[in-house]
């Protein structure tokens, strides 16, 4: 397997170089998508199936769609001259890069090996779930997850504040296969996502991949010409749904404080239920946020035929 690792590492380095340093923006974007794909394999080799799942769902799905449609919307994709600035400054970068690499290696060497595995294993029975990663995310370090959902919400707000959506949302090419694809696959996305959510309590899975999969399904159905359900209207249910994850997590955190527990310390016995509720809320919010992020602007209040084609 050492050969496998070396080959994978070489391919990853080459793809990263392609993505950042070769002419042709489209080539860079494709290289980056393949980079994400191979990163999923690297996570598998590093015994992190949870991250592989998230990378497959978010890296290969959502990021690829975001990059490709942003590329399509750029007014000018032609790069003048080299992709680099005037002089690559090799005299600076080769020694500086080598020094940086050396320092990083030294730092990695000097770090004590993290040993929280035992601690997690000790408190796992009380956390309400059997998968340690889910336990860390939604129970032990739920504070981090709260902030993460907050970042997603903030990103949506930032994008909506940039103004209206910059592009037509209907597909540029009409094809019966595309419409059929959206109709056939969207139920599959929901099904797989529900499966991942259910798996999350005892095996790799959980709210993040599940939400990302539904979000990708939403993006796919928008691409297939479906009218997006997301509207920018003040009264619509979507604003509530977008903030559901953040609101639920805060409510739970304060709720347990009212019961006399510390912030995010769930009362024993209720932990399993609380984690399940949080997962559902967070998954829904992540899915909605991904669709909102993909639209790259505030959607109109009403989706008329002219709004979709504008």
């Amino acid at each position, binding site marked *: 397997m050492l050969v496998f690792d070396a080959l994978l590492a070489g391919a990853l380095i080459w793809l990263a170089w392609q993505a950042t340093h070769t002419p042709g923006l489209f080539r860079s974007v494709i290289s980056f998508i393949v980079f994400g794909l191979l990163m999923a394999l690297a996570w598998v080799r590093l015994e992190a199936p949870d991250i592989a799942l998230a990378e497959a769902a978010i890296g290969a799905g959502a990021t690829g769609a975001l990059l490709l449609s942003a590329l399509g919307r750029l007014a000018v994709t032609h790069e003048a001259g080299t992709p680099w600035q005037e002089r690559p400054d090799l005299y600076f970068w080769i020694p500086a890069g080598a020094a940086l690499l050396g320092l990083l290696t030294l730092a990695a060497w000097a770090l004590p090996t993290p040993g929280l595995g035992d601690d997690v294993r000790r408190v796992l029975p009380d956390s309400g779930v059997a998968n340690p990663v889910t336990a860390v995310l939604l129970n032990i370090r739920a504070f981090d997850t709260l902030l993460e959902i907050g970042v997603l919400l903030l990103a949506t707000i930032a994008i909506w504040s940039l103004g209206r959506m910059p592009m037509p949302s209907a597909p540029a*090419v009409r*094809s019966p*296969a*595309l419409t*059929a*694809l959206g109709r*056939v*696959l969207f139920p*599959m996305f929901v099904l797989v996502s529900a499966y991942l959510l259910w798996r999350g309590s005892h095996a790799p899975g959980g709210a993040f991949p599940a939400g990302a999969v539904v979000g990708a399904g939403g993006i796919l159905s928008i691409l297939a010409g479906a009218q997006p359900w997301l509207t920018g209207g003040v009264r619509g249910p979507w604003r509530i749904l977008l903030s559901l994850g953040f609101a639920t997590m805060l409510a739970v955190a304060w709720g347990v404080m009212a019961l006399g527990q510390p912030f995010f310390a769930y009362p024993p016995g209720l932990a399993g239920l609380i984690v399940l509720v949080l997962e559902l809320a967070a998954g829904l919010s992540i899915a909605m946020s991904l669709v909102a992020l993909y639209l790259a602007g505030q959607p109109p209040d009403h989706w008329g035929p002219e709004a979709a084609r504008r």
Partner: protein
Amino acid sequence: MSLANAIGLLCVLLGMPFFFLGTLGLLRFPDAYTRLHALAKTDNVGLGLVCLGLAILSGSLAIGLKLFLIWVLMLIASATGAGLIGRTALARGMKPWGL
């Protein structure tokens, strides 16, 4: 090694050449249309044989069904993708090789 295992391994092994030939086609064929053709063989037959072989090797119905689902999903993606790319390429005036 039991007979089922041998058959499973044989299926996986039979699926492999399709991947190598797919890459060969991707590299050697003259235009996008012919490359679509090479790719379809990989997605349909290659993946199908590997999934079938692994399903036999696993000996479990649940895993077998999941493998079948993966194959069907890739079939849908590959067929639609090939159709879309071919149609768009033709509409944009890309001339097929040899015409």
